[in-house]
């Protein structure tokens, strides 16, 4: 907007040199400023979180729940009932699991880890080349992290964490890029071979929002798996997390898992 050289333009008649340049500038700024403000307003309107009623209607209020999960590895007998129940409940495709059980056998001479079909059909006895001094099972699943790497990498907003603390995948939005499958440090996600979208444990959201427990918790015969609402002081999960020495999987990643473990060995990753 520099009008200093007052020479005639090649195609237009010379403008008056004493034209009110300030007024012109003011007008221009007004127009562009107004346009920017309008666009910013439109964008803000599109992105503002409104106080919409929580999903689920009167039957379930997600503001009143914050779900958490406790796994007591010292109780697990490795029967795999949880794995079978999860697959039946959620129609998990052949060859994939949403929860699985790992077995750790170790001694001074070495260690051995297995999880045949995720523990779907239990575990066989195994010969080990070393003399084991300890052996135990570790059930694993999605940790429903507060700081979720899988949600952060989703390019289309298909992965998200609900207000009651459940990480889920919107199958209609998912484009099947698989970033989340790679981002999850716990290996909890897979791409469904039929729909080609990412799937994972939902803590049986269709059950917990109806007052039922997740299928894996429902069938566990030894109470290894405990699930509940952290907002209620009388819930066993809250009691355990408040009073016992609990640990989490791969804490150094700062993902803030909401699956808490009792009696977890340092061998487990």
């Amino acid at each position, binding site marked *: *907007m520099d009008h200093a050289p007052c020479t005639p*333009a090649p195609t*237009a008649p010379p*403008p008056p040199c004493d034209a009110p340049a300030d007024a012109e500038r003011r007008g221009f700024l007004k*127009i562009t400023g107004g*346009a920017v403000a309008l*666009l910013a307003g*439109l964008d803000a309107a*599109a*992105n*503002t*979180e409104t106080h*919409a009623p929580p*999903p*689920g209607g009167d039957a379930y209020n*997600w503001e009143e729940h914050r779900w958490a999960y406790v796994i007591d590895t*010292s109780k697990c*007998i*490795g*029967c*795999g*009932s949880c794995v079978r*129940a999860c697959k*039946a*409940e*959620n129609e998990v495709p052949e060859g994939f699991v949403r929860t699985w059980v790992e*077995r750790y*056998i170790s001694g001074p001479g070495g260690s051995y880890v297995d999880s045949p079909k995720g523990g779907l*059909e*239990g*575990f066989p*006895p*195994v010969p*080990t080349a070393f003399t*084991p001094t300890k*052996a135990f*099972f570790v059930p694993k699943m999605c940790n429903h992290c507060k700081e979720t790497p899988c949600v952060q990498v989703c390019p289309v*907003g298909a*992965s*998200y*964490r*609900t*207000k009651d603390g459940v990480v*889920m995948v*919107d199958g*209609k*939005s998912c484009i099947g890029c698989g970033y989340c499958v790679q981002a999850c440090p716990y290996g909890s996600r897979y791409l469904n071979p039929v729909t080609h979208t990412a799937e994972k444990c*939902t803590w*049986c*959201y*269709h*059950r917990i929002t*109806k007052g*039922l427990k997740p*299928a894996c918790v*429902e*069938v566990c*015969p*030894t*109470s290894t798996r405990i699930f509940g609402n952290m907002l209620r002081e009388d819930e066993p999960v809250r009691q355990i997390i408040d009073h016992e020495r609990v640990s989490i999987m791969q804490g150094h990643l700062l993902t803030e898992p909401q699956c808490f473990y009792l009696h977890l060995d340092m061998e487990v990753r």
Partner: protein
Amino acid sequence: MEHARHVFRVVLVVIVGLAAILIGRGFLVPKSHGIFGAYRADNVAEQMKARLPAHQGAASCTPCHKGKAETRAAGSHKTVSCEVCHAPLLRHVAEGKVTGPMPVDKAFTACARCHRKIQGRPEKFPQVVLEQHVTTKLEGAVCLECHDPHSPKL
């Protein structure tokens, strides 16, 4: 104004571009996106009713199978859900009506999943070395020849 014509041209292009982006966004971004966060809010309600709960727990069996339920509740399998050896209730009952026969796994392999002696189980948990415990042929429902699965202690 004559001098600023090129600027207005650029501004016009920018405005048209932004308008195209906003209109395109309106078509491409799902309706309920952004209500609770950067995701489609409708999916939360969709997940709630994604499927019918298949497992209903042991209490759901009691009304029709009172005898078996009492035997189980008094025995050492009181913590084992019926649906572990049988199948999810939904295979058998839907909307309060029997829809088909309830499957059951009577094979020794079903018992072995919990009670075969393997590395890893807590020591106090009852386990047997199958080959030593079963003196006859290890096949089919051999365990049930001696044990009642609803109250297995002899």
